[in-house]
Structures are given as structure tokens and as C-alpha cells.
């Protein structure tokens, strides 16, 4: 047992913290809301070889694990980085596990963006989370994992949405099969669990920064003759949120360890990490916005960027309460027929 990050992992975290601090400023985040992505940031991200970190070296990557990716996602979340991280990282690892070296090569340089269709409906019926910017998505149709390339003429401007996400639909029926049957099902499920963990990590980063913004404001904003942070109704919710964030981080770390070392409980832990991080991120951003009073409601203040994404980044994958039923299946076994 060892609950510490290695020196290398700390270095990864510092590197990406610095990158996003510099290149994912609130101003650039605002500009990217209409395009769904900051292309210059994506280039910087590719240049530091971020895209190969979670890929085995025999597939052209750097042999990192899910934990390294989670550390990056958390730092990206902290600065609301407008680049696709969770679904693309899970898709790249899925291509790696399926042995698709040729498809993977342009992904690792950043020239080809391959994301996931995480919904359960046919790919053409889904609002794709990276639809406006992806060149291809991996989808599971119940039988096969399919590589679906963007058809010509599909929108590259995102649908206007709450979280500035690059949402778009593709008018497409299907793509070519990369894997069939049980292996396809298992590997795609694994990719979805990795999305759960990486979305959780990003939401934790988002929430940590929301707490920073909210608590700093509470120190300087005066009301009735004292800083509002002195009122317990303002201060105390932050304490519960900090505890929950520590817990969410531990869940993410344990889920990374469990998935990468093939523990039986890995999928259940991934589900817990997602739900717990999602709920905590909402609470963190909601309370931090609220303590700003009316100012938090204005576009000028950054906290509204966090509040909107806390929900957008969550439901882009799933309804947290529905995920609790997934967790119940994983921990307690499925409900027996006739039970529901």
C-alpha cells in the first residue's frame, strides 16, 4: 500500500498545471465557447506529447497509466481547458488495446481527433460530445466496436450549449468494425469506465478551482461590517466540499489503480468516482457562485464558467443518479427478473 504519487507523477502534474495556467486563461476559455475548442492549446498539448502518455510504448506511447491521465484531466479541469481530453484519451487507449497502430499514429500527433460515442443509441442518433471537432469516433452497436469517420459536410460549429462543449450530430449510419462479440463489448465497457474516471478527475479540478475562487471572494467581500467568509453559513459548506473533494480524489486514484491492475472492483470504483465527483463539483460551483451574490450571475465573473461546466461535463456522460443504479448492478448484482 502506498498512497503517494511518485516523483514522476508529481512532475507530470506540475508540467500540465503550468501549461493550462498559461494557455487556458479565462479569456481563451470564453473565446472557445463558440468554437468548442482552442486549437492553439490543442497544438501545445500535442507538442508536450500528452496524447501518448496513456499508451503502451509498443504502440508508440509513453507507457503511462490511467492515473497519469487523471492527473492531466484534473489540471485541465482546473482551468476549464477547451480541448477534448476524457473521451479522446479513452478512445486512444481503446485503439491501442485493439492493436490499431495505424489508426493510432495520427491520434498521437494530434492531427487526427478520435473520440467516443458514449451514448447507447445508434451513432447517427447521438449528440456526439466531440462531434464538432472529431475526425472519427469509436462506437459500440451491441455487436461490434466500429470506427466511424466524420462524413463530408458535417457541422464543425458546435450546437450552442450550456458548457461550451463541441456538441454535434453526424448524419451517418455506421463505420467499419474493429472488434466483434465479447472482446468488443468488454473493451468498449472498459473505455467507458476510463471516461468515468477521467471525467471525474476533470470535475475535481474544476471544483477545486471553484472553491478557490469562491473562498477568495468570501475573504475580501464585506457585508455588515465584516468579510462574508466570517459567516458560518458562507464558510461551512466549503468544509463539507473540501472533505468530499479529498474523497473524490481518493476514489479516482483507487479506481485508476483498480482498473489498471485488473481488480474485480475497478468498474464499481469508476462509477463511484464519477458520481461522487459530479455531485461534489455541482455543490462546489453552486456554493461558490452563490457567495458572489448577484455578481456571480454576471458574465464578467469567472465562477459562472465553472458552474455551467459542472453540470455540462457530467451529463455529457450520464445522469449521476442513473449511474448509482449501474453501481448497484456492479456491487450487488443485477435485480432479479420481475423485480422492477
Amino acid at each position, binding site marked *: 500500500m502506498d498512497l503517494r504519487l511518485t516523483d514522476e507523477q508529481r512532475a507530470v502534474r506540475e508540467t500540465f498545471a503550468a501549461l493550462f495556467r498559461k494557455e487556458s486563461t479565462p479569456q481563451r476559455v470564453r473565446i472557445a465557447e463558440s468554437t468548442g475548442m482552442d486549437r492553439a492549446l490543442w497544438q501545445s498539448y500535442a507538442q508536450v506529447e500528452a496524447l501518448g502518455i496513456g499508451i503502451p510504448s509498443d504502440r508508440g506511447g509513453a507507457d503511462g497509466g490511467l492515473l497519469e491521465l487523471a492527473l492531466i484531466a484534473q489540471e485541465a479541469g482546473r482551468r476549464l481547458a477547451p480541448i477534448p481530453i476524457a473521451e479522446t484519451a479513452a478512445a486512444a487507449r481503446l485503439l491501442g488495446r485493439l492493436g490499431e497502430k495505424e489508426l493510432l499514429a495520427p491520434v498521437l500527433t494530434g492531427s487526427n481527433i478520435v473520440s467516443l460515442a458514449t451514448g447507447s443509441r445508434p451513432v447517427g442518433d447521438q449528440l456526439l460530445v466531440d462531434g464538432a471537432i472529431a475526425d472519427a469516433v469509436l462506437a459500440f452497436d451491441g455487436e461490434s466496436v466500429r470506427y466511424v469517420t466524420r462524413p463530408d459536410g458535417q457541422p464543425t460549429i458546435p450546437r450552442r450549449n450550456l458548457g461550451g462543449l463541441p456538441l454535434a450530430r453526424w448524419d451517418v449510419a455506421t463505420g467499419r468494425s474493429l472488434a466483434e462479440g465479447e472482446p468488443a463489448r468488454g473493451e468498449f465497457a472498459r473505455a467507458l469506465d476510463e471516461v468515468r474516471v477521467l471525467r471525474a478527475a476533470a470535475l475535481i479540478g474544476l471544483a477545486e478551482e471553484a472553491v478557490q475562487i469562491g473562498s477568495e471572494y468570501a475573504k475580501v467581500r464585506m457585508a455588515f461590517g465584516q468579510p462574508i467568509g466570517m459567516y458560518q453559513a458562507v464558510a461551512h459548506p466549503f*468544509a463539507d466540499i473540501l472533505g468530499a473533494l479529498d474523497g473524490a480524489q481518493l476514489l479516482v486514484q483507487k479506481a485508476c489503480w483498480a482498473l489498471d491492475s485488473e481488480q474485480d472492483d475497478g468498474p464499481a470504483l469508476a462509477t463511484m468516482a464519477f458520481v461522487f465527483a459530479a455531485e461534489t463539483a455541482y455543490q462546489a460551483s453552486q456554493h461558490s457562485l452563490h457567495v458572489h451574490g448577484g455578481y456571480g450571475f454576471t458574465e464578467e465573473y469567472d465562477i459562472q464558467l465553472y458552474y455551467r461546466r459542472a453540470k455540462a461535463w457530467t451529463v455529457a456522460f450520464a445522469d449521476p443518479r442513473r449511474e448509482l443504479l449501474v453501481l448497484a448492478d456492479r456491487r450487488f448484482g443485477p435485480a432479479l427478473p420481475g423485480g422492477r
Partner: protein
Amino acid sequence: MDFTEPANWSRIRNDAEAFIAEHVTREVIENERRTGDGVDRTLTRKLGARGWVAPTWPVEEGGAGLDHFEASVLLDTLRKGGVPTIGPGTTMLPANAIKATGSEELKARILPGVAAGSTLICLGYTEPAGGSDVFACATRAERDGDEWIVNGQKIFTTFAHVADYCFLLTRSQVGSAGTRGLTMLLVPLDSPGIEIRAVHTMGYERTNVVFYNDVRVADTNRIGEAHQGFSVMRAALEAEQNIAPSARTRSIAADALEFARTQPRSDGDPLINDDIVRERLARMAMEAEVADLLGLRVAFLDADGEKPGPVSALFGPESYVRASAAAIDIAGMSGLLDWTDPEAPVDGSMDAHYRSAVATTIYGGSSEVLRSLIVENRLGLPRSRPRR
């Protein structure tokens, strides 16, 4: 990072379970439920013989030489198995304070008995008017030659009626206030002038009010410097917040799951097949995992000398209260039956947890005090309690 459980944890768990199978009879369990004593003296001596009262102390000092993690595995298993752990567990807080700041004579006189399970020490902090504000202490200690004369009243002195000593917070300087002018005394509970009255709780636990009327305590029973009791107390309080017993959220989650697997809904279908039940059981499992991980991290960071603030001591009890309330909702009427009813499912666990959970957000630092400490230490928010 590696969350693999070290191999010796399962050995420790097995040892503890073997102990439980041999010594913790149904009679022991029912006796504790009936009396709420928080301790079984015979059983505590048997724990002491194995070094399990002071498990983190070296073997030559009567301990078992375990690290923090191993000790918490041991204590959790013992508690789960029905060993009354409040008495021996509480004893260790003052015992560690004595170990850190007591005189050599006091250590030699008291600590071997503690480790052996024959000496029990209760906590005399809280007063009727004090509550969470422990440093409002008004119990007086007046120096008289080689002795102190103690007058005052303490409340919530759990297991005082079976303990040997009370680790007593007193105000020793007239006119002092707050954290200044305090002295810690180890008061033998058989001293003349002490009166102990039972206070029964809804949680099958007994606690006490203790009156001190001209009680004479030898100065050799002072812990730390005279009038500097705050530093002794602070160390003991921090130990309590940072090494809180692991959360019982896991325990109610497991019992509620067993209830749902074995008990039918009104239409006869098992509760576990109902999505409304499943969602809440999943939430309990999730919060239990978080509570355990936060507790594990406390032990881990403690070994590293880091302090994340009492977030574990806040989340554990708060999640336990939430889970105990949800478990009752799920269980319905048969969950209301207490353990004395032969038909009570899961040995009346839903009733018992609901009764006892709520107190855990109070003792060892109320949630509100912990929240203030957390936001002050980690976010630098201004202090909200008035300074004295």
C-alpha cells in the same frame, strides 16, 4: 499508487476474529446493549494480554508493535465483532498524552496497567455549560501543598462508573479564561468527594454526570506543566480528530444491504429488486468507500507527519447519519424493531444504528467546530468564533 491491502492485515483480522469467536459470547454482546457500559473489564484484560489495548505501542511496553493501519484494522474488527471498544479506545487518548508529557514516575505508575487492560481512564472535558467550547472550563483546581483541591462538575463522562481515573481538565488560575490557566489532572475515581450519576441515552450507551466536591488529587498526578494544560489538551484533541475511529458508514451499509436481500417489500418481492432501494444502497456503498478512504489517508498521512485537517472526522460521522436515516426509510416497520425482539431482522441493526449515529457528529468535535477548523486551516477563511 498502490491500494493493495498488505498481507498482514488479513492475518490481523483473522487473529481478531479468532479472539471474538472464543471470547465474545452472545452474553457479552447483550450485556453491553443492556448496560451501555462501553467496556467489559474481563474482556479488556484479555485484549491487554495480547497487546491489543495499546496496539501501536512497542511489545516491551505492553503493546503489539502495530502501525496505525494495522491497529485500525484490529480495532475495527474487534468492534464489528461485538467487543465493547469505547472504554479501552478512549483510555488510549489520555494514555498517549501521559506518554508524551507525563512525568517519568506517572508513566511508570499508570501506563503498564493501561496496556495490560487493567487500568481504564475516562475523559473529563465537557461541562454542562460548555459543550463544544471545552475551554470554557469552570471546574476549579486549587493548589494546596502537594495536592490540588478540585471542585466542579463534568458531563458526558462516558464509562466513568467503571473507570479507574478521569483525565480531568481544570481551571487552576483564578481569573484566567479560555485556553490559559488550565491544568490537566489524572484523578483517581475512588477519591472521596466524587459522585457519579448515570445519564442514559437513546443510543444504548450510558454516560455520566460527575460531581467533584473538595476532591484532593496528588500533584504527582498532574500531566504536563501546571497552568499549561492547554498544550496537553490540544495534543489529545488533535489525536482524537485525526485518529478518529473508522467510520461506521460501512457497517450500516452492509447491514442495510443484508436487510434488503432478506426482507420482502409489501408485495412480497425482495427489497433489493427495487430501484428506489438500490439507488440508496449504492449511495451508502459509495459514501462508505469514501469514509474508509479518508480514514485510511489519515493513518497514512499521520505516518508521514502531514495533516489534512479533520475532513475524515467530519465526513465519516456525517455520512453515517445520512446512511442510518436512509436505512430506516428502506427498512420500514420491521426495521423499527429493536434487538430484544426475536423477529427483528439483522439483529435490530437499523434501529440501533439510527439511535447511535447522531451522537457521532457531536463527540470528538461537533461537525460545526470541525467545519470551522477545516476552512480556517485549508482556505484561510477568517475565524468566526469570538476570540477571548
